[in-house]
């Protein structure tokens, strides 16, 4: 038996245990066995990767950007979910608001998710800036921001802060909310509750999570692991439950240009490499 690669992941739901036990079983007996370690937040996980406690980190996009910053760009992304290559931020308001686009937010209040959520906080501010809008709390700027930091440390993985942002819209504490497309899907888009919410702007697609490794990890150990990962098959009944729980149909090689907008946002907003 080869020495297993140790994968780090953040435990944002009890299903993370099921997912990674399933992954460990899938790799068992193959050329690149693996085990896993769970962390309570991404800061701790990135620290562990840099300290060599784990070989590979299952990172959010923000954790990737911070790892790049702390390694001077030496780290590498190994793979990601197909859904990670086409992630989006969705701006929604109450149905009938007719905001018409980001410029419609001028003079209004936008609810954001946790401060470390790329999809629900960091990138939305970036998109406002690209649209020529300034933003801030307590009425500062063109768009007033209502920040809801419900799940800091998890980089928005729980979706809790995005749901709270939507609650703020329903309860008229905000005019609009920014959320990840996965949360928008989870509430049934505007199809399940017609008359509740409407989308007034969708971001371009960008990259979300990836498996991150340091350059010190030997390619002879990484390559067979990545090859076996990419071979997981949605049509295989043994693989499918894990893929469904993790929210993908196919593991793919990383789409690195999809992180450009987040690198820009982090620089613009002066977000520190460590949280």
């Amino acid at each position: 038996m080869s020495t297993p690669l140790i994968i780090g992941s953040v435990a944002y739901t009890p299903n993370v245990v099921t997912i990674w036990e399933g992954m460990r079983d899938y790799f068992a007996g193959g050329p690149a066995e693996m085990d896993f370690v769970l962390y309570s937040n991404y800061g701790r996980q990135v620290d562990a990767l840099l300290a060599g406690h784990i070989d590979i980190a299952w990172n959010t996009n923000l954790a990737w950007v911070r790892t790049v910053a702390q390694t001077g760009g030496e780290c590498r992304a190994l793979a990601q979910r197909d859904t990670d290559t086409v992630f989006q931020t969705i701006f929604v308001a109450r149905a009938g608001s007719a905001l018409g686009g980001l410029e419609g937010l001028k003079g209004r209040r936008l609810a954001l998710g946790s401060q470390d959520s790329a999809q629900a906080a960091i990138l939305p501010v970036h998109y406002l800036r690209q649209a020529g809008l300034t933003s801030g709390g307590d009425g500062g700027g063109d768009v007033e921001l209502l920040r809801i930091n419900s799940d800091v440390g998890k980089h928005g993985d729980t979706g809790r802060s995005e749901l709270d942002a939507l609650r703020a819209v329903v309860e008229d504490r905000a005019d609009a909310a920014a959320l990840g497309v996965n949360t928008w899907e989870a509430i049934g888009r505007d199809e399940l509750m017609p008359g509740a919410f409407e989308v007034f702007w969708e971001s371009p697609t960008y990259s979300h999570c990836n498996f991150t490794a340091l350059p010190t990890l030997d390619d002879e150990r990484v390559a067979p692991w990545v090859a076996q990962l990419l071979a997981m098959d949605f049509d295989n009944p043994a693989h499918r439950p894990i893929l469904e729980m993790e929210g993908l149909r196919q593991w793919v090689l990383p789409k690195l240009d999809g992180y450009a907008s987040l690198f820009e946002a982090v620089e613009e907003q002066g977000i520190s490499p460590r949280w």
Partner: protein
Amino acid sequence: MVNPLLVLDLVERTGALPVGGTTTVPLGEVAREHETELVALWCERNGNELVGVRDGVATVRRGRSPDPFAELAPDQVPGTRLWIYTNFDCNLACDYCCVRSSPQAARRAVGADKVAQLADEAADAGVSELILTGGEPFLLPDLDDLVAACTARLPTTLLTNAMLFRGRRLQMLQRMHRDRLVLQVSLDSATPELHDRHRGARSWERAVAGIRIAQAEGFRVRVAATLEPERFTELEPFRAFLDTLGIARGDQVIRALAHRGVAESGLELTLESLIPEITVTADGVYWHPVSADHDDHLVTRELFPLRDAIDEVRRRFVEIRARADAAAQWFPCA
């Protein structure tokens, strides 16, 4: 309009659950029907399951409940076998008979025409094996016609005490299809004492003789014993005896005594504890052959179309298993 907060609560509460876990969301009083529908639609769309609504509270499971049929051996899947009680009268009056058969029991025969229709509909509905039982089927004067109708459509097993293989009844046996029919004979012990205590004097000797006659006629014989649960630890002498009779180990069926019919003791069986084996009598369709004389296990009085009865049993089985799973989730003691 329904309250959008309901869906937000659903997403948040199920998101925190492990797969298989359940949570509840309260529904509003004014639009309860619409909100129930919304919860069901949301569950369907997201791969979750609405377990039920009670007293204005919806219970939702993360993920879908496991397929109860997938956990069963292929021959246990309801609708794979069809039992038919051809009649209820019997030449014996066993003291543990689960359906109260005896010489005094009314015949309550299904009849050759209905048996033939059942065989046809069973084959069309995907049943792969017919099992005929009683009472003692060899008391029926037209048993050979009835068996022929079954073997013409599906492999068939005929349960008998094997005590009547002589004269006209032996001739009926000789007319049966040897390749499509298995005879299952009741025999409870390696020596007469125990068997005769439950089934009557000299019944063991005549059953063993009957087994030998059936084998000599070229039939495959299976032996089924009904034992008190405490006797399951002393099976080997009995199996060794059956070996001497030439009964293959795979044809040696040992089952526990059930507290049903005239039995004064035995396993307590309920709809919940039995994997259903669809059973037809003259009186209706029942959950399982062990309870074919008990109204608490009656599924329907309508024998036809048989497929409807099979569908109903499968539907109830799924419902019972889902209810049991949900109860297990709701009732942790520590």
